[in-house]
């Protein structure tokens, strides 16, 4: 890459099902201001403002026109990235590219979604009208199909998936920004919650949230000045795949986009044993079963061993590789921000600012983004510029 780049500040809103105390621009302002405060920068220091959002979920057109100035984008370069569920990681990757390019030195990337302003399930139903709309509308139905296939192939049980759901909501209790904080949630409660599409229980699924998250990138010289412990971006890889559900062979089983993106990113950084070499992972799990599938795709275990990994508590907060100490997407899901939150939470761990959710001594952190039916982003952050 042209220049080394690090994350020097992060900021989030308090995420809730309905942030009716702020409008969309004010919500963006809240996250942007928090990130500037965290980095001890002023809005004048920012050279470019990049937004990530899925406008159909709120019924806005070009929301960056309204919200850009909430992030201090006036008279600056300001654009919007929209790639479905990966919007938040895509805009983060764009932010990294901007700071690495040499044309911008300090760049803010902000993901946001105010789902309570619209109706996400309706928005998600607007898939291809000829082929997909009747069978795969919304997020839950198509996941249920792929999960049945995955569970049958790998032998993961509803209990193992429920443990993921419990882990997320309990971890969220340590995160003051998280939406669903459920300290008392049990595996039994997950399993006795209503089935929304077999085999997915209500508690297996992510919520719909309002929220925004901002990440500030700086090129090397400025990063070292601004931040005592910068989170260096060591890899940023995207893989997209076919558009139609029926074209994706063994979707969650193979998830070839994530496997290939991880393979390339690991090679760039020299990661051979991800479970040992990463100190923390913030991965995009829209449904409990997906987290198990991602364990395999990301090389945390061999294929078929994800359930055991969960049973052994390897990915709990005190395990060998804590996964989503923030509570993950299962706790907080403002779609356009969900990927950005993963990046911010991983950076926060390297900055040593995780407070109650801090994993001790984080040097290497893994981030994943996921969207559409099988799109994947992988980022690796490190305390060392490499």
């Amino acid at each position, binding site marked *: *890459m*042209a220049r080394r780049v690090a994350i020097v500040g992060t900021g989030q809103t308090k995420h809730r099902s309905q942030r009716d105390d702020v*409008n969309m*621009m004010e919500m963006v302002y809240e996250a942007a201001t928090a990130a500037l405060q965290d980095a001890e920068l002023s809005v004048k220091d920012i050279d470019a403002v990049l937004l990530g959002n*899925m*406008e*159909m*979920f709120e*019924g*806005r*057109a*070009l929301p*960056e*026109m*309204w919200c*850009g*100035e909430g992030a201090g*984008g*006036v*008279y*600056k*370069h*300001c*654009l*919007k*990235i*929209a*790639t*479905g569920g990966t919007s938040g990681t*895509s805009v983060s990757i*764009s932010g*990294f*590219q*901007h700071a*690495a*390019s*040499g*044309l911008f030195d300090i760049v803010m990337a902000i993901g946001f979604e105010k789902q309570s*302003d619209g109706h996400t399930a309706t*928005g*998600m*139903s*607007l*898939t*291809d009208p000829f082929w997909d709309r009747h069978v795969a509308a919304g997020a839950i139905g198509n996941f249920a199909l792929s999960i049945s296939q995955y569970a049958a192939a790998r032998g993961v049980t509803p209990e193992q998936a429920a443990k993921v759901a419990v882990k997320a909501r309990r971890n969220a209790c340590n995160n003051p920004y998280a939406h669903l904080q459920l300290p008392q949630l049990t595996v039994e409660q997950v399993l006795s919650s209503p089935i929304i599409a077999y085999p997915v229980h209500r508690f297996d699924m992510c919520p719909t949230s309002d929220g925004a998250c901002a990440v500030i990138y700086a090129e090397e010289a400025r990063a070292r000045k601004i931040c005592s412990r910068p989170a260096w971006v060591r890899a*940023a*890889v*995207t*893989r*997209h*795949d*076919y*558009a139609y559900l029926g074209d994706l062979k063994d979707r969650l089983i193979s998830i*070839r*986009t994530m496997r*290939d993106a991880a393979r390339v990113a690991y090679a760039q950084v020299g990661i051979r044993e991800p479970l040992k070499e990463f100190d923390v992972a913030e991965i995009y799990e829209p449904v409990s079963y997906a987290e198990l599938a991602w364990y395999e795709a990301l090389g945390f275990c061999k294929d078929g061993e994800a359930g055991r990994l969960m049973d052994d508590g390897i990915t709990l907060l005190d395990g060998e590789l804590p996964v989503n100490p923030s509570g993950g997407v299962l706790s907080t899901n403002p779609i356009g921000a969900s990927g950005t939150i993963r990046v911010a939470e991983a950076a926060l761990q390297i900055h040593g600012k995780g407070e109650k959710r801090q994993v001790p001594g984080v040097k290497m952190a893994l981030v994943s983004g996921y*969207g*559409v*039916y099988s*799109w994947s982003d992988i980022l690796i952050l490190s305390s060392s510029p490499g």
Partner: protein
Amino acid sequence: MNPKVGIMGASQTHFEASKTHQTISEMVFEIAQKALEDAGISWEDLNYTITSSVDLWDGLTASNATLTEVVGAVMKPEMRVAGDGLTAAFQGMLTILSGAADLVLVLSYSKESMSSRWGITNWVFDPIYQQTLGLDYLSAAALQAQAYFSRYGITEEACARVVVKNLSDAQKNPFAQRRPKVSVQEVMNSEVWASPLKALDVSPISDGGSAIILASERVVRERKAEPVWILGAGRGLENHYLGERDLVEGEALRRAGQKAYDLAGIQNPFEEIEVAEISCAFSYQELLWSELLNFYPIGQGAKLLEDWEADLDGKLSINPSGGLMAGNPLIPAGLVRLVEAFLQLKGKAQNHQIPGVKKALAHGTDGPCGQGQCVMVVGV
């Protein structure tokens, strides 16, 4: 700019009022294929794709998802800029400069015939104060035109002459939407849509798209290609609320232009650039944007027309393609401008070729009254 980014090839569709014979995927596939062909590269050579489209125009959520195969992005990276096509080219340039890729397809399209231009652009305005007033790009543009006219004494006739010029030039552009030549009188007599804007002052509803292939300096050298180079680029955003803006001063466009000129080492754009392709969905914008881009002193837009009439003397030509009046959808319009600049620099503009073009400017815009602005200077 150093290191440099080159444009290896370009393509555009024929622009039509309604492309009923093609789905979006079919149209996009054709655009991508032709761009690759023009650049002399294969699908396998591409290592990044930047698309530009807007879900509301396509009536689909994550509409770029339906295009992965036809933009060469299966098991490869794609990023979708949800806005103006020239901004996607800007992102593509940064992707190369960052080292993330060295051969990038940038593609933008829209089928406006499938949707409602004024309905969708009403949704761009904040939902609390402005959307409910019924503002859309048309009524907002009428306010901007009125402010511009009254401050600098610009007349409706002067704007009508811009339309006459563009529709006359469009006759020579093989990709232009088929529209008849018009007279000043016909423009003046066309139906008033939002005073002072009349039907013929407004760019037509259009279907189509365009693409470019960007390459790093290394790839250009390896392939011994003769690209068009990006010499400079800048972007800027105005405040959102119309009441908080000086609609005539256009600070964002001034700054975006200045940034591009500085990077390209241009002191006097009027003298140093031969062709400017600028995005003007409304006739008055060709005069106003030309002033804000520092081609003319502010308020002297009418001088542009005199210079147009003296075009053959080698002065700066503005929109020899016919511009948006020749029919370009709002989303890809900025990228079509870059494609036209590319064609002029390569001497491939056929009947609307301006002789001896060494430097050209492309401009794109998003939002009401030019709220978001993008300027790129290219050269050989």
